[in-house]
């Protein structure tokens, strides 16, 4: 799959499967998830809640639910995260991969100073305290926080949500990671603040050549930010392709459905149409294509045979009718 012209991916997930071992029946969360992110590339991972996108992106840091059984590989910089011991995981998290979470208010310990939060990661990576403080100031300046020295002594409740998310991003960039995982980084923020945060993320990615895995439920936002997008449904990747092609010519009815239910501003655009039914998780999914129950184009075969992810156009789709050019 790797094209010779492209650099080695910083992240490569291969056939990742995660099952929660409950008391009796194991509950599957992910099945055969494969994706990759190259240096400097922004890759979207889009899905509704319960699709498994958060489990997938947390696995990059080796953060998996307790008692989970995992198959496949998650390679960061060529090393398999799933086989790492405690020390290696700490090295991975302090140096190679950083994560930005959805709600900055919840991400930062409310009782500790901003300075503590910023330097904590650096200290964990072995930076001496004075150097860590100096670096924290630099980082705050880089994300556009005025009076960084004063900010270090403040507590999180003295910041607005957008400002706090800037702090979280600054902390994520502290160790110059090769890969940044952003899990719905703007969902908890106002629209105007969202744009600022996206702008900061984009600028920093360009400046530093960091690979960015951008997880969101918002296909429209993903299209604005990402080079390529993976669409997840019920614990599986159902479609993967470049942003432009995905929007112009989606191959999976679920992607098409997601696009059709996004309201548009242009004059004469069709009214948004919701996808009938509700999203399911992998554990609840029936055999066959998990989307079949909600799909207007489902055939009997769709309910029996799980479609494999196969190349269609410039990307991949997991649909028995992907070659028929079905739109929603």
């Amino acid at each position, binding site marked *: 799959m790797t094209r010779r012209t492209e650099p080695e991916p910083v992240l490569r997930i291969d056939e990742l499967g995660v099952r929660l071992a409950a008391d009796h029946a194991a509950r599957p969360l992910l099945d055969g998830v494969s994706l990759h992110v190259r240096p400097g590339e922004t890759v979207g991972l889009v899905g509704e809640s319960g699709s498994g996108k958060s489990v997938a992106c947390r696995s990059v840091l080796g953060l998996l639910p307790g008692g989970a059984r995992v198959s496949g590989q998650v390679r960061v910089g060529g090393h398999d995260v799933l086989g790492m011991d405690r020390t290696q995981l700490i090295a991975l998290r302090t140096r190679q991969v950083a994560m930005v979470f959805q709600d900055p208010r919840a991400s930062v310990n*409310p009782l500790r100073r901003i300075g503590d939060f910023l330097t904590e990661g650096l200290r964990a990576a072995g930076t001496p305290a004075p150097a860590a403080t100096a670096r924290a100031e630099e980082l705050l300046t880089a994300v556009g926080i005025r009076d960084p020295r004063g900010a270090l002594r403040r507590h999180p*409740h003295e*910041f607005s*949500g957008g*400002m706090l998310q800037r702090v979280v991003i600054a902390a994520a960039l502290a160790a110059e990671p090769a890969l940044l995982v952003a899990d719905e980084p703007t969902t908890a923020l106002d629209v105007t603040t969202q744009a600022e945060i996206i702008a900061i993320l984009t600028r920093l990615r360009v400046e530093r050549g960091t690979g960015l895995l951008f997880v969101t439920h918002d296909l429209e936002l993903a299209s604005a930010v990402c080079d390529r997008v993976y669409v997840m449904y019920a614990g599986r990747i159902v479609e993967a392709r470049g942003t432009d092609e995905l929007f112009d010519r989606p191959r999976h009815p679920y992607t098409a459905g997601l696009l059709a239910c996004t309201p548009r501003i242009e004059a004469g655009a069709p009214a948004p149409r919701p996808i009938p039914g509700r999203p399911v998780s992998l554990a609840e999914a029936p055999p066959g294509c998990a989307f079949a129950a909600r799909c207007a184009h489902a055939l009997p075969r769709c309910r029996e045979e799980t479609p494999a992810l196969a190349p269609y156009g410039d990307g991949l789709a997991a649909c028995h009718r992907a070659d028929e050019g079905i739109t929603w």
Partner: protein
Amino acid sequence: MTGTTPSAAPAAGGAADALRRRPGLGRLRELGRGPLFTASVAVLAVLVLVALLAPLLAPYDPDAVDLSASLTGTSGGHLLGTDQSGRDILSRLIHGARTGLLGPLLVVGVSTLLGTLLGLVGAWRGGWADALLSRAMDMAFAIPGLLLAILLVAVVGSGMTAPVIAMAVAYTPYAGRLVRGIARQEKARPYIEAYRVQGWSGWTVCVRRLLPNIAPTIFAQSAMNFGYALMDLAALSFLGFGVQPPTADWGAMINEGQSAIQQGAMLPALAPSTCIVLAVVAFGIVGEGLADRISRRER
């Protein structure tokens, strides 16, 4: 800077409230919801029956002194042995269940009634009445029940009266605070407004509609308080301030049994101790279990 968190302030107050509700037995229920609850109900049922039928069940007169049969230990004649005065311990335990349950019943009954009244008035009226009542209850928390009881005993003398009155007064703010809290929540619900729009008078809605809805929660809390009241009253009896000898009472029996322990006879003190712990645990589990059921039903 921007960003205020008014929600932060109640955080610490919440913990204080939690303590005021004395979450002692809280998580015992996690150890097994069904069987433990059932067993506790059974224990309490047996306890009530024993108290009611004490004269029929007790093998001996609980006050019959027989100095020749002092501290006999377990035997066919005396299942749990005798105390230092040769009184049958089992019979005293059985009769002790009466005072053991009657005191807490009075305390919890009176404090729940008073607390419900005060809590409802505060929640329903709001404004200055609520502020005044809340302030008064805060103040009442500062004088611990045990201390109030001891003060009252010092004035009016030992016996059931002073401890029961003092404990009823001391437990009222617990009940009042609980009722005020849940009544305020309940009052904010749309159905209350609906009745008022239909022309029901305020107090009719409050007493006929709101009160029945919060009554189960009050009852659950009362069950828990029953255990604590039992514990507190037993402590006062142990100090010699409660039921006066020779009346059989668990707390007093432990007090009398102390010297027997030094002589190696454990039963005179350990038997009533076990009864107290068993009753307190059972009341706690039943109260928690009821509260748990109510909150699950509402969800």
